[in-house]
């Protein structure tokens, strides 16, 4: 896994589950939850955030080098993370999640609002649009998924040559996403209702041209979360933190530093 200076790879025992985690920076705790592709390693946005926060970037159960164990649903995943926060002795944690990671963050917020200081949901799965639909990503080719994921596909990072071991990990990660996201397809019908019951300061960030999860879903999140704000980033598809990194960091750091 890609790491940088001052970043450590640790394995944390969470209820008997050996959890892979990158950790870097200093300051208030920020738990970064990766998307359905798996833990991307220490990326530029982790680095930028770690200048103000202690960034924890674990691999979810079933992804990369963390075993799946009993985790079969997004609900299980959220329960697991409440356990991880307990294990690390973290309180008043900020959460930042992209796509599936955003959905996990929202479920944690709904379950355990008193431990969550605030959350940033980036092009999050988890709610179903009223008019549009979340795009099909399992029954189509990877090339097609890439085509709809980017506003400007030239911004997509080069994957490079993968070793046999890395290819198998990519395959296992996809298998885990299939388990977690298949049905109901990429959403929890009651999540908007759950979110209305709690108060967690939230920032919803969305790429305006996201063709995987339409911006309408960001609006639903924003309406369901009390006291949240929605920041729609122009010229960006499903990955605003990669396509428009500066604007993403500006709105995210502005929100997190005011918590």
């Amino acid at each position: 896994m890609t790491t940088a200076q001052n970043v450590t790879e640790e394995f944390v025992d969470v209820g008997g589950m050996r959890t892979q985690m990158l950790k870097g920076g200093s300051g208030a705790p920020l738990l970064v939850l990766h998307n359905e592709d798996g833990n991307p390693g220490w990326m530029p946005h982790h680095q930028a955030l770690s200048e103000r926060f202690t960034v924890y970037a674990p691999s979810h159960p079933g992804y990369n080098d963390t075993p799946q164990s009993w985790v079969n649903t997004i609900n299980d995943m959220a329960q697991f993370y409440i356990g991880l926060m307990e294990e690390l002795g973290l309180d008043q944690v900020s959460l930042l999640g992209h796509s599936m990671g955003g959905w996990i963050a929202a479920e944690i917020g709904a379950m355990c609002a008193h431990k969550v200081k605030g959350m940033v949901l980036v092009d999050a799965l988890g709610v179903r649009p009223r008019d549009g639909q979340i795009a099909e990503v399992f029954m189509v080719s990877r090339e097609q998924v890439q085509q709809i994921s980017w506003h400007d596909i030239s911004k997509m990072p080069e994957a490079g040559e993968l070793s046999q071991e890395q290819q198998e990990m990519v395959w296992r990660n996809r298998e885990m996403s299939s388990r977690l996201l298949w049905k109901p397809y990429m959403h929890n019908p009651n999540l908007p209702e759950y979110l209305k019951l709690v108060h967690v300061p939230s920032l919803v960030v969305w790429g305006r041209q996201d063709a995987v999860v339409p911006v309408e879903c960001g609006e639903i999140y924003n309406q369901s979360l009390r006291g949240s704000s929605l920041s729609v980033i122009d010229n960006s598809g499903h990955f605003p933190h990669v396509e428009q990194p500066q604007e993403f960091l500006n709105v995210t750091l502005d929100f997190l530093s005011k918590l």
Partner: protein
Amino acid sequence: MVDQLARLHDKVEVFWFSEQPYGHITDETIEPYASGRMGFPNTHFDPEKAHVLYNQYHEQYALADEMGFDGIMSNEHHSSYWCMKPSVNLDAAVISKVTKRAKIAMLGNVIAINDPVKMAEEIAMLDCYSGGRIISGFVRGTAVESLLGGIDPTENRERFEEAHDLIIKCWTTPGPFRFEGKYFQHRVVNPWVLPMQKPRPDIWFPGTGSPESVVWAAKHQHPYMNLGALVDVTKWLKQIYIDTAEETGFTPGPGHFGYLLRALVADTDEKAIELGRNFMWTEDHRQKGPREHMDPPGYQSREAVRVKATQPGIGIGGLRTKKTYEELRELDNIIVGSPDTVIRKLSEIIDGLSPGYIHIYGNEGPMPPEDVMRSIQLLGQEVNPALHEIKLKPWVG
């Protein structure tokens, strides 16, 4: 009543099989579409034409029975123009009524995507209809069957195994009982209709080349039916069956193994060779589509994919090794000819594999129906009796 579980086989049983294709599709029709199944619009289906075809296929069944075929095999696929059978149980119900003697092998019900209790009930009905002639194959289906069934393909294997156990329990454990599985939960199971065959109908399990399917079948002592792999690979798979059977603690034999191949008989070699070209009908399009349709993550092991990649398969698209009609004939994967030619070639295969069952995939695409009927007649009158003369070699000892 036949006790299918006895497995005393010293002669091969020959089964008739047709995919029941919608033969009006041409390469030109399907060429523009990226997918031959999920993405090929059903607006190309004409029920009037299907009505005619279904009746032709039912006549084939009646003739195969009359000509003395030992059995008729049927199957099920969804969203497939080359197989108009979204319900194998419905087809078996027809077979049970248009035939008198032939065994009816279903290969089979896609139990992972269906309610297992209802499957147990329907198969029991069929066994009663047919007077105990049912062989109840269970299949995982292609991945497309799971996708169309709305089932996460990573669940297919576990769902299949749980459904398998529940169906057997329905047939062998007096009701009412409770079943609380991971995927199927019934607090009361008590099917009134039960199979005629005791302890239960035989269960077959097919595969196209994946060794894990062979291991699974052998561990459960179910006969394994290989669908169209090359003979050499089939021999290797048979050895895996033998090894697994020995580990499991039973003596395997011909009754545990069957082999399907494409075959057509005509009055002359020339005519059969010409008609046999229809076996290549829309070959490139049937299973085409993104890898995610046939091989989604979690559906099958990487080992299975590697083995299958070396095999031609039947109408299998991009994941398979493509071969020409001439090459497939050369490899005896497609056998066409006069009765003498076909007897000679099939006898060699039977000598080499010693299978309890041979499935004749004998009809394809736009083959003229009268030629298919003639093939059934020649198989039944000339080929099958010669094959029955072959004394099968025991596998072990």
